[in-house]
């Protein structure tokens, strides 16, 4: 296909790699939020860049009306006692977002998913 609209700057790939390896042994949930910057259509981490360690903080930080991508590692104990830490991409898309924003994020979700190399 022709070159895509979205760019993934090296800072984002680095932050994704840090999260992936940093969350391997963590005991709390680790999450980062990414958005598409309107200026140059690049997928960047929302500033101030931070790793959220609780789901409440994450919920507070997410905007009410615009889509975001959240990469989350969630350590948990399954019913049979195994420790698991699934590494997932959350495509956060509120119903009150504008059609334009929804289309923008929908176009980039596959690219971002491939880059983040999540399990699902």
């Amino acid at each position, binding site marked *: 296909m022709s070159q895509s609209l979205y760019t993934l700057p090296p800072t984002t790939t680095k932050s994704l790699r840090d999260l992936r390896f940093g969350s391997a042994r963590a005991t709390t949930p680790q999450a980062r939020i990414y958005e598409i910057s309107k200026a140059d259509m690049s997928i960047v981490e929302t500033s101030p860049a931070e790793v959220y360690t609780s789901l409440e903080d994450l919920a507070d930080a997410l905007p*009410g*009306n*615009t889509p975001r991508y959240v990469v989350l590692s969630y350590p948990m104990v399954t019913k049979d006692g195994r420790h698991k830490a699934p590494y997932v991409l959350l495509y956060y898309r509120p119903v*009150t977002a*504008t059609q334009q*924003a929804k289309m923008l994020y929908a176009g980039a979700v596959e690219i971002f998913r491939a880059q983040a190399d999540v399990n699902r």
Partner: protein
Amino acid sequence: MSHSSQSLGHVPIEDHSFSADRGTLALARDIGVELYDTSGPKYTLRTSLAGHDKTVTAVDIALQSGRIVTCSQDRNALVWEPAADGTYKPTLVLLRINRAATFARWSPDEKKFAVGSGARAIAVCYFEEENDWWVSRHIKKPLRSTVLSVEWHPNSVLLAAGSTDSHARVFSAFVKDVDARPAPTVWGERVPFQTLCGDFVSPAGGWVHDAAFSPSGNALAFVSHDSSVTVVYPSGPEQPPAAIVNITTTMLPFISLVWLSENEIVAAGHDCHPVVFVGSDQQGWQLDHSVDDPLKVKKSSGKESSALNMFRQMDLKGTPTSASEDSTLPTIHQNTITKLRAYASSGGRVTKVSSTGVDGRVVIFSV
């Protein structure tokens, strides 16, 4: 006690709103909104706002910014921004409801507006800078049926909603990004969005046509289809109210009400004339007097009311009274009054109310 009346055609008027200086009147009629110039003895049509496909059910002019919000049975709401040359530019607000919108009002601080709908939800809409458009959040939880009216509390956070499931409810419409944290009121202290702060029914039940907060916000009055007016005085959050006073009348049901002061309410409806109630939480409430009382209208003298005449009329015309007396009502309004709004106030009390109804008249009553 002078009342001024304007007859503007015979199409029923669904809702009306005056601008802050009372120089412009917006009327919601059929599928459009008409803006009239009120200077001069007769109101003249200035512009017409067309944008809805079905009956416009509400219109409200924001007093400070001049923006007009309209909502209609076509499930949409439009916000009209005034341009410098007197025209208005509409912006569609996606309410995300799948039934007609019934009522819309700006909040007192004009940052939000609430739209009641037949979809058992109230859409609270605010402008989001980031996306440069109006976003709506729904209040759905305890509503079981169509919302007939929504009125704001003076703090722009609480909403009183009257609904066809016979309940008058108080909700919190606190939007995190738009509102500053409100001061605690008798209705509640911490009130996140969609909190139900109060739920009231009148003893005989019946659709709640209109509900409104008192000027201080510490009491709620609502009119229901059982021809009664109920005034609620809450004592505190999560507690039973200090007093619920219900005034039943033998008149026809009221459709709209306005608080004149902390101790006076004017209500109007199917009886085609406003009625004033006076009272307080200590002494209770009672019906005080009727404005434009039909019983006080002098019967047109000059007709002999003799028995001979009466039978002669019956022979000729089939009715004992002549046609002209019979076909018009003695009140100024000839049909149900559907909306009352405060028009002028002085000395802390509303002195004039404007009313519109199914007969297409706009009347300003002195109360």
